[in-house]
Structure formats: C-alpha cells, structure tokens
C-alpha cells in the first residue's frame, strides 16, 4: 500500500495544483507493439539527449531502462492492485460454495481431504467467493503486486517499477508510474516526460498512452514488426493520439522499411527517420551506457530522429 505516497502528495504538490496540471508537460510515449525492436535503447538515448526530461519506465513487466541509466533510488513504494481471496483453513467447512461460484478455477482442494484453498495465481480478486461463503471463512486482503521507485539518474529524475511475478493490474501500475512522473515534471518545471511503454496492445499499453502528447512507434523491418506496427498504429488512432514512427535496423530489409513508412504515412504517422543496424547498440547495453554516449552509426541516426521528434512535439 503506497501509504507514504498518498500522505506525501499534498507536500509534494506545487502551490496551485489545478493550474499546474492544466499547463501539462508534454509527454512522449515510445511503444513498439512487438518486443525487442530497440525501444528501450532509443528511450535511453533520448533521455541522454534531452537532459531535462523526467523518465518513466512503464514497461513494468520487463523493465530494463534502469540497466543503462544507472539510477540511484530515492523512494520505494509498494504497489497494491486490488484484493485477493484467502480461505481461513480453521473456519473452512468445505461446503464447496467457493468452488461453485468461482469462474476463474482458482479454488483447489486443500492439503486436508475436505478443505479448499485459493490459488493466488488464478484468483482475479472478484470477491464473489468472499460474499457467498456460508461460513464467512474467506478473507479479502489487499494484494501487493509490485513496487515502484523514484530515482535520480545522470540524465534526470526517473520513475520505474517492478511488477510482481504473475501479477495483474499492470495497467494501474503503469498509471501510477506515469502519474508520479507527471507530478515530478510539474514540480520541477521539466520540459518533457519520456515514457518507455510496454509491448503489445492490451491493458498496459492503453494505460501508457491515453492522453499522451504523442506516441513514437519504434518498429523493425520484419514481417512481425510490420504486422504488430499496424496493430499498434490502429490503437493510437483509436485513442486519437498523434503518432510518429521510426524504423530501427532498417538496412536489414530496406523494402520492408519502405513499406512500413508508406503504411505509416497513409495512416497519418509522421516519419521521424531510420536507424541503421549497428553492433554498438548491443555493446552500449553490455557497457551499461546509452547508445549516443558510445557513438556510432546508430547513435548518429538516433540523434537525427530525436531532433525531428523534438521539433514535432515543439519541445
């Protein structure tokens, strides 16, 4: 339970919160649809180039940005997402009502022959078993399903998180990380919030991009990259968010890169540029640095992309 966060909020808010929030800080969300297209390497480089941005790692399921941005953690908060049902074995009379009402197959036979337990990995936290247990033997505590952190990095403040194993609600954790980044940006008068978004098109991505100033899609010229880019573009259009696009490792398959850009342009995306395949990208990761700090052809291309994105966002 992020008690400290709730209690601290009045102190950390600027004097006129409503007006401050109205003067929203521009927010760039970097997504990819498909994983492994180089999204995080691009975000880390943008952070190094922007310098005064607040960085938010919303890829809470596989957060990697901290591996290259060298954060020093200032605050750690527990993340609570909903509730979970827990049967008090001492009070369980094994009537089986819980098993009958559970739609998620979360009720299993317990250790003893005639008792039941809830499998926390399957429990959706709906509370229906809690409501209908005739013995009132089911507790419904809050579920801690991750942690989030406020840190400083050489490139600016950073908010990041770690979702617990098998945890749900990554949408809410994403919202928490974004919300905190926004608060810090407003307090510090930052010019930009830079969000490393999650892969896919489901709940976490939706939570990461709604209301953003712009979305940058980092894709790759592969059949999968192309397929997933189309879906993610459709999603951004669905939520009416302006989209820019860049093709990473474009020289692996120039024809596909071309096709992707044509498709993007036809669907209203701004083409922010192309990034060449460069072994330095992996080397930078191994050395725990950003690509632009190491230099190379990809670094040059990322600078060009950043320049266009910056002008596109007017920051």
């Amino acid at each position, binding site marked *: *339970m992020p008690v400290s966060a*709730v209690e601290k*909020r*009045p102190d950390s*808010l600027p004097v*006129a*919160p*409503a*007006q401050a*929030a*109205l003067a929203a800080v521009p927010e760039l969300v970097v997504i990819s649809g498909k994983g492994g297209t180089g999204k995080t390497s691009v975000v880390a480089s943008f952070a190094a180039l922007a310098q005064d941005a607040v960085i938010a790692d919303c890829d809470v399921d596989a957060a990697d940005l901290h591996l290259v941005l060298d954060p020093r953690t200032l605050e750690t908060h527990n993340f*609570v*997402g*909903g509730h979970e049902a827990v049967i008090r074995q001492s009070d369980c009379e094994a009537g089986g009502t819980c098993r009958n009402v559970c739609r998620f197959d979360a009720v299993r036979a317990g250790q003893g022959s005639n008792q039941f337990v809830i499998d926390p990995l399957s429990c959706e*936290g709906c509370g229906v078993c809690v409501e209908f247990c005739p013995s009132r033997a089911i507790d419904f505590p809050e579920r801690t399903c991750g942690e989030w952190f406020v840190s400083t990095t050489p490139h600016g403040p950073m908010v990041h998180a770690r979702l617990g194993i098998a945890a749900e*609600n990554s*949408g*809410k954790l994403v*919202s928490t990380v*974004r*919300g905190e980044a*926004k608060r810090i940006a407003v307090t510090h008068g930052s010019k930009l919030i830079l969000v490393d978004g999650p892969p896919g098109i489901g709940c976490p991505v*939706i*939570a990461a991009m*709604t*209301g953003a100033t712009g979305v940058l899609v980092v894709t790759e010229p592969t059949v999968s990259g192309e397929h997933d880019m189309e879906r993610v573009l459709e999603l951004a259009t669905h*939520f009416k968010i302006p989209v820019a696009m860049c093709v990473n490792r474009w020289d692996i398959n120039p024809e596909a890169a071309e096709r992707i850009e044509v498709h993007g342009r036809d669907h209203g995306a701004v083409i922010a540029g192309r990034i060449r395949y460069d072994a330095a990208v992996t080397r930078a990761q191994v050395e725990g640095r950003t690509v632009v700090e190491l230099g190379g052809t990809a670094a040059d291309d990322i600078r060009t992309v950043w320049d266009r994105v910056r002008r596109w966002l007017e920051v």
Partner: protein
Amino acid sequence: MKIVVSSIGGSLDSQVDPRFGRAPMFMFVDTDTGETESVDNSAGTNATQGAGIQAAETVSRLGAECLVTGHCGPKAFRTLQAAGIKVYTGASGTITEAIEQLESGELHLSSGPDVGGHWG
C-alpha cells in the same frame, strides 16, 4: 445549491484536487444552508480501475446538483451526466475559492469529458 468539490483535504481551506476519481476527499457544500461535509474517497484513490465511476456514484449519493473539479474523464462524465449532475471543470485554489469561481461564472460547464481516461 448542493455542490461537491474534489479536494486534497477535508476543510474549506484545502486545495482543490484537479483529479476527480482519484481525489483523496470530496467536500460537500450546501450554499443555501451553509452546511459542509467532508467525504473520504481513499477507495477511489486506490481503485484498480473505474475510480471515476465510483466517485460519480458517491457524488450522486450525496445528492449533489453539481460537481466542481479540475478535469473530468470520459467514464466519470458519462456517469455524472446520467445522474443529472452538472460538471464544472478548471477549478483551482482552495475549496472556498473554487466555490467563488463557480458563483462568479468563471468555471465552464462541461458538455463532455475534457481529458482522456487514466490521465492522472
């Protein structure tokens, strides 16, 4: 008039919380009788989803005629509209100041949500 304002604290001197669904408190103010009441919304602050819907239900239950807040998202707006509650956005400062802003016509009556979902 019965007004609910989204608030950071539980008094008339508290700051308006620009967020509706995830505001920690609501201040209920009846401008005719001078009656005030603070209502806890920690359930909304911590809600996994649907904080705005739940908050709208709370405001409806309090019998408010209008809501004063910073911003209002789409689901909360739909719910408030269905409950027949007028939504005024753009409020700032203390609760007392926000009510003055409302009475002097400085706030705009919303005809739709002014932010997307999950905005804060």
